[in-house]
């Protein structure tokens, strides 16, 4: 129990530290336009908070604590080197303003949303937006981000530095965009958060970001939809692995192992989002997950409803990823033959060559039809997965297909591709027209 208390204190301290860091960074950067300088100023204070707060407890005004430490560094720095004096001055002025607000017990305005809009600006490389948001809003270091995105730390650092330089030099605004641009710009922010969620090691951080976004954009149904989607997927994170570490596909998971609390929260968010009557891609994706979650009560999966949602998603996004998922649902509703036809229709797309869920889906449909090519497709899917448990799962399916013992079980490995790779596809999804 005592240990749990300590762990809770550490998690809470880290949460508050990241919260305060993100708010301060947004406040300073939006006034100076210099993300790197603001990061520099806050770095020591943030590191100290992560060390001290779990032990001493969280200070009453966390931002004030961070600022006191940060300002000392800023003025030391200003004294030490006289270079770029004007920029330092700007930063000091902004820090003074923040400190004055803290002293007055006025909250520092939460400008993290403006920061997210700057980081997901269309003038920045789409690939760097998610890493940039993770670094600036949550204070994650480049090394952690690099390892999550399977990229060399030095390369990731360079790209982050370059993006921050462009924000400063091209004067990318820290602002909520005009109403006409708002929907597409919100999409860019939400896309970046979903990409972060796709990196298996950063799921908690991405959920945190989605919480921040839905809190700051309460009138944006897609922001609520994204959080609902992520909570539904999170609710199944434990049920996805058996006691022996084996991969369990969605359709074979034990619903009693799903997290009720997260599902309830997701359902509440989706309900709130639907009240706006402005459906969108994330709400539809969340609705698909909601339909899967309903198996907990009904004991069965409503595949026709899921197929209907994928039809609509395909219409909205035209995404090839959605087309694959739709084919999977089609197999469940109308059987493997129309599903194979649907997969054949997209087979020419060169992006599918290294896209694991496509090969897993194709393999399952071929296996259900008793076709010999199933084994080859399974092999391709195995060669493309990064998850050892999924690899073993597909190997079993492949062996089963080879011995012609095909049955209902086949459908589930389609969901395996869907479920395990949903993570990685996020990035892909973005590039999909």
């Amino acid at each position, binding site marked *: 129990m005592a240990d749990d208390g300590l762990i809770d204190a550490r998690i809470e301290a880290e949460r508050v530290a990241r919260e305060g860091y993100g708010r301060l960074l947004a406040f300073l950067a939006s006034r100076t336009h210099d993300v790197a300088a603001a990061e520099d100023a806050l770095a020591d204070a943030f590191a100290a908070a992560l060390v001290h707060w779990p032990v001493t407890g969280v200070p009453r005004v966390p931002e004030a604590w961070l600022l006191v430490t940060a300002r000392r560094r800023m003025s030391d720095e200003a004294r030490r080197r006289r270079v770029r004096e004007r920029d330092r001055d700007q930063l000091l002025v902004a820090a003074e303003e923040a400190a004055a607000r803290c002293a007055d017990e006025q909250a520092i305005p939460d400008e993290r949303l403006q920061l997210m809009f700057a980081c997901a*600006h269309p*003038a920045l490389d789409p690939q760097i937006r998610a890493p940039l948001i993770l670094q600036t809003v949550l204070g994650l270091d480049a090394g952690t981000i690099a390892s999550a995105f399977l990229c060399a730390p030095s390369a990731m650092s360079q790209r982050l530095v370059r993006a921050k330089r462009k924000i400063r030099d091209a*004067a*990318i*605004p820290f602002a909520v*965009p005009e109403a006409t641009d708002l929907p597409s710009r919100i999409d860019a922010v939400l896309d970046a958060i979903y990409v972060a969620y796709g990196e298996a090691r950063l799921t908690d951080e991405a959920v945190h970001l989605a919480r921040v976004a839905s809190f700051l954009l309460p009138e944006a149904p897609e922001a609520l939809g994204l959080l609902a989607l992520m909570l539904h997927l999170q609710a199944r994170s434990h049920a996805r692995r058996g006691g022996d570490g084996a991969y369990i596909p969605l359709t074979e998971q034990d619903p009693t192992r799903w997290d009720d609390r997260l599902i309830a929260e997701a359902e509440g968010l989706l309900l709130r989002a639907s009240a706006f009557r402005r459906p969108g891609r994330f709400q539809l994706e969340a609705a698909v997950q909601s339909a899967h979650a309903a198996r907990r009560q009904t004991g069965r999966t409503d595949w026709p409803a899921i197929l209907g949602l994928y039809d609509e998603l395909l219409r909205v996004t035209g995404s090839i990823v959605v087309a694959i998922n739709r084919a999977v649902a089609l197999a469940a509703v109308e059987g493997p033959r129309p599903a194979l036809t649907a997969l054949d229709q997209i087979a020419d797309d060169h992006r599918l060559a290294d896209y694991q869920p496509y090969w897993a889906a194709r393999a399952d449909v071929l296996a259900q039809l008793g076709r010999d090519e199933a084994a080859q497709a399974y092999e391709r899917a195995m060669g493309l997965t990064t998850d050892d448990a999924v690899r073993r799962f597909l190997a079993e399916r492949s062996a089963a297909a080879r011995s012609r013992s095909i049955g209902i079980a086949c459908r589930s490995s389609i969901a395996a591709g869907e479920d395990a790779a949903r993570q990685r596809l996020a990035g892909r999804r973005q590039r999909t027209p």
Partner: protein
Amino acid sequence: MQYMLLIYSDEKAAAAMPKADVNKMLPAYEAYTKGLQGAGALLAGDRLRPTDSASTVRVRDGKTQVLDGPYAETKEQLGGYYIVEAKDLDAAIDWAARCPGAAHGAVEVRPLWRMTA
């Protein structure tokens, strides 16, 4: 902030344009330039003569080398520019989007590196 809007288009296609289409283009640019002026955003701007009039100069080992033609042979050529005053990149992008050239060619937006004392 000051930004340079560099207007790229296929000058061969422009040269081959029927006179009637050219006559439509000119008023569009006039209106755009007036719009920039009216908003107090126009600092400079002009159309460039085609790249067959371009010369590219390099100095190597103290010797001046001049090549006939533009710096880079590309499908689309720099045909004109504006220098505008804009609050931030979004405002500059808005001006770039209004430029008639953005509708057929492309407009590159570059912040000016102001030489401050």
